[in-house]
């Protein structure tokens, strides 16, 4: 166990060792400073030329959002049709079928919004063409969208008063050429050399020692596994995601994948501080996020390593903790660690079954996704955190007797209105989604749909409730992991989660950028002794309290009926 703990400590330490210089690098790249990757600029110029984009044209926040929404809509339309007709298109050696319209809709939205909720299984649901030109393509561009908007957000606070937030197309292009592509290539190579397949051939046949014939799915998986983590996407090549021996063959690849999903979210925080010249603020934000992360990680480890009380009641000692649903090559510690990071940073890839984790672990996974700002997704994590920050600044500002200010800009009714709306949208989607599902399950259990609602849940009762809650929470957080055990590939879940995915993605992007754009236009107020400093420990505590209380108040009843009820019933 000692070694296992050392393993995750080393993983986290390495994450920081890579993420901090990466943050420095990101700040330089987007500030247009000299970096070695400037050798790619001819390539970028070619892209701008072909696309007919002037990278120096400055856009305001509305133009940014317009550009972002336009390109996302195009991807939606393109992907929807390709997924539906993949059976008639090339690169389909296993002869997989086309998707049903509602599955195609759910899948394409899910990938466009960086969620990667997969209601299909990679081996049989998609072809090599769609894996690469839809799934992988979107894993790059959806992550780049998040980074690009975050950079526009940075630019709002770089100058004292400005209307110019840079050029969306330039941010987007640089996010791919300077960040995602180079890092993915390195990681994909490391993975490929460690046993992750990288081949265009169809299923392999092998004969087991018993003489049974087994067909093993493969494909160019290494490249996708790299970007799925780097871009906090999470969608696996294979159905079992990173628990699959070909997607995550060893403890070493497990470490590589764990590290690669955390580095960009952490680096973005560091980059923010350097970019706007307020390093202390960035470290304060990083501190709050890290404490939040650790407060989720430590109890998760405790609950998993403690083993299952029901098994303990049978008189069986569980030396290595709760092993149900876990891979022996990773063990419960690394799996618990993974379950925390994948829920805090909205990756959603898994290396074990979340459905099998202890009830309290499920509670922490849910909480991590509800908060969705302890590092958070690629670029968007910081935007989510910003909304909490605005509310904290507003209340704290009043408490010190001054009209609240954020980085020298007065916070007024309009900004508070937007922040309140964004805060509202998550409880609305999560609670109403779960309520609708619960209602359908109890009141229309026998409806003659493609799957009758009463057949959705493998374990009705509290755990079944958690499964439904998890599914909508994961969709809202654009996380994509699932408490499997929920029959989710049917019209109801495909459409419900598709709607939640869309709102859960775009409102928390539009809102914060609008607030930042509005604030940036306002007159800059220099700091005085009466100004509330937001890079202090006290204010960090305030933000933390706001995050905790807001989420606890919104979700406590739902959590009480799911994981908490399950926990108390289990220990009885």
């Amino acid at each position: 166990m000692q070694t296992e703990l050392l393993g995750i400590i080393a993983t986290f330490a390495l994450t920081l060792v890579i993420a901090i210089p990466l943050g420095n690098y990101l700040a330089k790249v987007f500030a247009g400073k000299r970096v070695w990757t400037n050798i790619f600029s001819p390539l970028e110029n070619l892209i701008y030329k072909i696309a007919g984009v002037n990278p120096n044209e400055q856009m305001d926040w509305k133009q940014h959002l317009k550009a972002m929404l336009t390109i996302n809509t195009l991807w939606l339309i393109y992907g929807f049709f390709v997924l539906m007709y993949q059976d008639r298109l090339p690169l389909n050696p296993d002869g997989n079928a086309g998707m049903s319209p509602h599955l195609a809709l759910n899948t394409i939205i899910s990938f466009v919004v960086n969620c990667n909720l997969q209601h299909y299984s990679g081996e049989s649901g998609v072809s090599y063409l769609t894996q690469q030109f839809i799934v992988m393509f979107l894993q790059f561009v959806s992550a780049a969208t998040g980074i690009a908007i975050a950079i526009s957000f940075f630019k709002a606070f770089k100058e004292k008063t400005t209307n110019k937030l840079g050029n969306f197309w330039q941010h987007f292009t640089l996010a791919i050429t300077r960040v995602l592509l180079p890092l993915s290539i390195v990681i994909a190579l490391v993975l490929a050399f460690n046993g992750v397949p990288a081949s265009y051939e169809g299923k392999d046949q092998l004969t087991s020692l018993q003489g049974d014939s087994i067909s093993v799915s493969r494909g160019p998986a290494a490249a996708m596994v790299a970007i799925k983590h780097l871009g906090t996407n999470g969608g696996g090549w294979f159905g079992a995601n990173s628990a699959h021996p070909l997607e995550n063959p060893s403890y070493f690849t497990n470490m590589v994948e764990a590290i690669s999903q955390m580095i960009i979210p952490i680096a973005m925080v560091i980059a923010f501080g350097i970019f706007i010249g307020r390093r202390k603020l960035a470290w304060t934000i990083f501190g709050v996020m890290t404490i939040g992360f650790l407060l989720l990680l430590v109890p998760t480890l405790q609950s998993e390593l403690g083993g299952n009380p029901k098994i303990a009641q049978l008189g069986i000692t569980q030396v290595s903790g709760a092993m149900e649903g876990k891979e022996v090559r990773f063990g419960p510690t690394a799996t618990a660690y993974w379950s925390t990071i994948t829920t805090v940073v909205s990756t959603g890839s898994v290396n074990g079954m979340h459905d099998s984790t202890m009830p309290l672990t499920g509670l922490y996974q849910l909480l991590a996704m509800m908060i969705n700002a302890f590092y958070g997704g690629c670029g968007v994590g910081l935007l989510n955190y910003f909304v909490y920050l605005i509310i904290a600044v507003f209340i704290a500002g009043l408490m010190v007797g001054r009209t609240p200010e954020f980085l020298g800009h007065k916070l007024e009714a309009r900004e508070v209105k937007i922040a309140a709306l964004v805060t509202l949208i998550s409880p609305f989607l999560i609670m109403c989604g779960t309520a609708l599902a619960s209602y359908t399950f109890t009141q229309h259990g026998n409806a003659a749909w493609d799957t009758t609602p009463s057949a959705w849940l493998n374990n009705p009762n509290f755990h079944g409730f958690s499964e439904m809650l998890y599914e909508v929470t994961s969709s809202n957080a654009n996380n994509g992991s699932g408490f499997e055990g929920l029959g989710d590939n049917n019209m109801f879940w495909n459409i419900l989660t598709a709607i939640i995915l869309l709102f859960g993605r775009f409102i928390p992007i539009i809102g914060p950028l609008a607030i930042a754009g509005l604030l940036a236009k306002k007159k800059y107020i220099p700091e005085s002794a009466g100004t509330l400093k937001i890079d202090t420990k006290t204010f960090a505590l305030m933000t933390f309290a706001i995050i905790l209380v807001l989420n606890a108040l919104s979700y406590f009843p739902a959590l009480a009926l799911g994981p908490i009820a399950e926990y108390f019933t289990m220990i009885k």
Partner: protein
Amino acid sequence: MEKSSTKLLNSAMVSIAIKQSFVKLNPLTMLKNPVMFTVEIGTLIMAGVSVYSINNSSEGSFAYNFSVFLVLLLTLLFANFAEAIAEARGKAQADSLRKTREETPALLLLADGTTKTISSNDLQKDDVFVCKAGDLIPTDGEIIEGIATIDESAITGESAPVIREAGGDKSSVTGGTKVLSDEIKVKVTAQPGESFLDKMIALVEGASRQKTPNEIALTILLASFTLIFIIVCVTLKPFATYAQTPITIASLIALFVCLIPTTIGGLLSAIGIAGMDRALRANVITKSGKAVETAGDIDVLLLDKTGTITIGNRKATAFYPNDGVDKSEFVKLSYLASLADQTPEGKSILELAHQEYPNLIVAQPENAVFIAFTAETRSSGIDTGDGLSIRKGSFDAMKFFAQQHGHELSSNLIVQVKKIAENGGTPLVVNKNHQPIGVIELQDIIKPGISERFERLRKMGVKTVMVTGDNPLTAKYIAEKAGVDDFIAEAKPEDKMNYIKAEQQAGKLVAMMGDGTNDAPALAQADVGVAMNSGTQAAKEAGNMVDLDNDPTKLIEIVEIGKQLLITRGTLTTFSIANDVAKYFAIVPALFIAAIPALQGLNIMGLKSPESAILSAVVFNAIIIPLLIPLALKGVAYKPIGASALLRRNLLIYGIGGVIAPFIGIKLIDLCIGLFF
């Protein structure tokens, strides 16, 4: 008018407020406060459920439902009471002001020069009326002819009469004050019912009170919290159906009312009214609630030296005779020169002379001619009948006279003059028959305790700027001694204006106080402009507050009142939200415990039964409102300890306190209610 009544409430106000609490239940009135409006809807539903439960037990017993209904109704009444009592207090304050506005006869001056007695209520703007000694001034106006001593104690509480005269900066008179001597002609400056006082009265009474920007933003935030809790409560029904737990309507509504921020929602408007009321108690009339709020954000404070930083005028502090001049002789001659001098400086020379030589008796010489100060000669003095000519004046003026008459200036005189100037004093040279014989040192006396006030302001983050007509050397000395951050020396009205504009350009909010017509543009430019009541009409129109006491240090108080207003809102919001944690632990187990006994683990307070738990929570939620009314009215104390320290302090008291208090409160209430349910 009494300066401020220390009593928070009296029985008359309470009875008016109780009546108003019921009147305000009108849904149209409640609609202005979204949080409390939702409570009203909940109360109505509970009334229906209570009636239903008389014959049906599916929604719980009648006693239980009716209890919940009663507690909710109490919650509403308490919230209304908070607002009503704040209004009643404001009204009482306003009424005492209004007493001065009672109908009085006015002597209207007609075009043909004759006068006619009419009621003060019939005076229109631009009418001219005449007031003689002993008359009450019927309404606000500006003296256009004459000079008079006026007793303003009805407004300021200050018994010493003041002089008001046509022209200049002291031409304004206020309705309700009394002319003590002489006769004046006054032009009416406002339509009946539109004077500052009338506007203020309307504001405190709530009739024309508009929400301030911060209040609007906070209301939006609170409304969104309310929406979240609507979602939580509505979705709970299908959740409970899934968990096969029947939830009564009473429990759902109780949960909802407990969760939404009723504490701050109920007290919000009371806090706003109380803020303006506090300003009024400080004898400051604000033209809008927004001005009070802005005052809390002030970064730069422009203060006139005279009257604010120093005690009005310079005083003589020392006599420095020239070498070879006997000191007693010098003092005697100085005394003689100042004998008829009515300026405070002149009087202070006599005072000092008596202090140094208690037995000094200088008789007024016969046939003496007093020479008054003029701007040209810049000196004053006396010519006695026996050919003695004494003059005192500025160094430059005296030097000029001496040299004109061929006298050399002694070097030790020059040294002495320079020394005095360097120490921030003003040298007054005395010439005997055009020959300088010594220097009198005049010093500004800095008000005691003023530098501590500036220190307090600095800790608030407010920069103080002294405005003075003095030369830069003197100004610098006084600025340092008084502890102001910056000064404008040899200030002309446009200098103030430029300073304000420059600070505003840098994003700062500036407050200033002024009285003269030439201050008007700067008062209008400043974010908070406080005009003195004695000031000209133009100054009063330009500013957004009027100080009835004419006290220049009032600005400091105004800044604190503004800050207090925001702090009270912020801390009570925090308290209200922090309370929810405990309420969840009371209500959520109570909701599900019947169907899921394991959730007893969440009942960490060990409340007796689901009914008693829910009732205890709503009772706590209701009684916390009246308990906090005194705090809302008085305001949370502002401590200038720096923003971060202040946040830490308030977070500890109202955040942590807000989490802990309801755990204790609910448990205690449960111990009582548990006896019945």
